[in-house]
């Protein structure tokens, strides 16, 4: 029971790291980016390639995966995404679906369609018993990393100048611009970091979530659930939403495997009906 909770929390933390970038994209630029999962996949494959071709140890690949996807995000933001901020949601959806298709087909072509396996270092394998709770070492590793990241992100957001500019821009883009905040630069930076985090999440999660070319399609709905249910104005909302989603998904799959994904989807629809603006959003 507690083991299940622990696994669920690890899963939820992972979802948060994967999707917090998306929440900022959506909140700041009102941009519906269905291709967010493609960045996560890029991170996962970066780790795979580094480990198998260049013999880089697993833990060392994680920052590299972050940097790689952040750079990728920055390039795409400056070249492609930038042109779409003013366009309709339909255009954004079409564009990002197109991007997903391209990513899926390219990865399929380059890496093959089979599921990729990550060889974890021996230190991270296995389980230990603590107070009768069976704890996976790798999952505690994920939880540790994600906790640190959450704290750092929260501190950046609440304590630094960049953070307050970002919050101002999310709250009201036009007023922030009027006050002399360069929203485009903030956005480019945030997009890069968000993509990088997704990439890191993809690398971390390759072992738990599985990694194959259809990853962006398979997990798109999860990211979107986190963001829409959690709302886009704070980090707390998506964080709580990811934890709930993670625990509900793990528990659902364990206790009522027949119900499969129903629990999640039904919960999502109910949430959206009751709180269309997200769990913690202020009413506008």
């Amino acid at each position, binding site marked *: 029971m507690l083991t299940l909770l622990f696994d669920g929390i690890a899963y939820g933390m992972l979802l948060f790291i994967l999707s917090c970038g998306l929440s900022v994209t959506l909140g700041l630029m009102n941009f519906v980016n269905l291709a967010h999962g493609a960045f996560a996949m890029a991170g996962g494959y970066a780790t795979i390639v580094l480990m198998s071709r260049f013999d880089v140890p697993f833990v060392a690949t994680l920052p590299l995966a972050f940097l790689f996807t952040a750079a990728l995000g920055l390039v795409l933001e400056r070249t492609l995404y930038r042109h779409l901020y003013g366009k309709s*949601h339909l255009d954004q959806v079409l*564009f990002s679906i197109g991007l997903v298709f391209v990513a899926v*087909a390219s990865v399929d072509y380059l890496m093959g369609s089979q599921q990729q396996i990550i060889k974890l270092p021996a230190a991270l394998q296995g389980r230990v018993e603590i107070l009768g709770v069976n704890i996976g070492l790798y999952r505690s590793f994920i939880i540790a990393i994600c906790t640190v990241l959450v704290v750092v992100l929260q501190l950046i957001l609440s304590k630094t100048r960049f953070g307050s500019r970002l919050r101002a821009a999310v709250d009201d883009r036009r007023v922030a611009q009027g006050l002399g905040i360069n929203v485009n630069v903030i956005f480019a930076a945030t997009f890069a970091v968000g993509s990088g985090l997704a990439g890191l999440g993809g690398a971390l999660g390759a072992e738990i979530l599985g990694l194959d070319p259809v990853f962006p399609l398979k997990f798109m709905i999860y990211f979107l659930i986190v963001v*829409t249910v959690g709302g886009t104005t704070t980090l707390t909302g998506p964080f709580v939403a990811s934890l709930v989603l993670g625990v509900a998904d793990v528990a659902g799959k364990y206790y009522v495997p027949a119900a499969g994904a129903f629990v999640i989807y039904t919960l999502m629809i109910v949430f959206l009906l009751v709180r*269309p603006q997200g769990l913690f959003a202020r009413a506008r």
Partner: protein
Amino acid sequence: MTATEETAMTIGLAAEPASAGHHPAPATAARVVAALKRRRRWRPLEAVFWAATLASVLLLPSKHLILNEIAILGLFALSLDLILGFAGVISLGHAAFFGVGAYCAGLVATHGITEPLAGLAAAAALTALLGWATSYLVLRGTDLTRLMVTMGIALILGELANQMAWLTGGADGLQGIMMGPVAGWFEFDLFGTTAYAYSLSVLFVLFLAARRITNSPFGLSLLSIRDNPLRAAAVGVPVNGRLVQVYTLAAAYAGVAGALLAQTTQFVSVDVLEFHRSADVMLILIIGGTGYLYGGLVGAVLFKLLQDMLAGFTPQYWHFWIGIFLIALVLVGRERMVGGVAAAVRRLARRT
């Protein structure tokens, strides 16, 4: 340009002359009636289009199987056009209705009622009911919420179809569908000739209905909702009621399309409810252009041709090119690309 003026432009209303200021209401009503009548008139190009489809039945006997698929996709895209092109509702889960229609028609057939038209009617009724029930979920919220809710509904239904193997055959698909002759007369054949003629007739009849519906005051009210829901509500259009109605109608159309697929291929798999169906149908509609009913049909033809061509070229990776195409389409500007072609066609039509 304001949204109302845009709507006025799309239906071909001239700007109101300044001298009509004294009694604007009756004059406007008369002009709207005249404009609707103008829209309802058949243009030569439309006749050419339908003549060409009729000719394809007679002249391309070896291609009837793929033409049948095109007709079905066209009907499916037409149904999406009703809500996206006319009412401005974005849906990423339109396959929900397509799939339910397909399963419904398949199950009706496996349970002993082999008359295809009865299957169509059952599928239409069931999907209309489903559309009506879910329309209330779709009404709420913004574009993003709508995307999520429509997608969620399709996913739930897909999961249901997968789990209820005793009814739907699960992952193996629904097998053993035997269809009787259409209207007790036309037997289905191996070459898909009856199938194509059947699908095409259904498509034509439903197209006529959609054409009549969209060129009516009801259709105009939908356009005004699409262009500016707030203003539409302010001038007295019952926004929510209209959206429910058109969503229900579109659901029934999609259901019929799915039923046609089930009946003509005599097989239904979980694939009919999958996400890529919803994405593909949106793509088809976008290729052809939204909001003038022919978009879905033209798009279906282009999509299948493109698929055939690219699949021959790089079988496994044809989605790559579709993706590139989508990105290019959006970056160049959908209006500019599709609008340019539409304008050219219009010029051509005016000349003939």
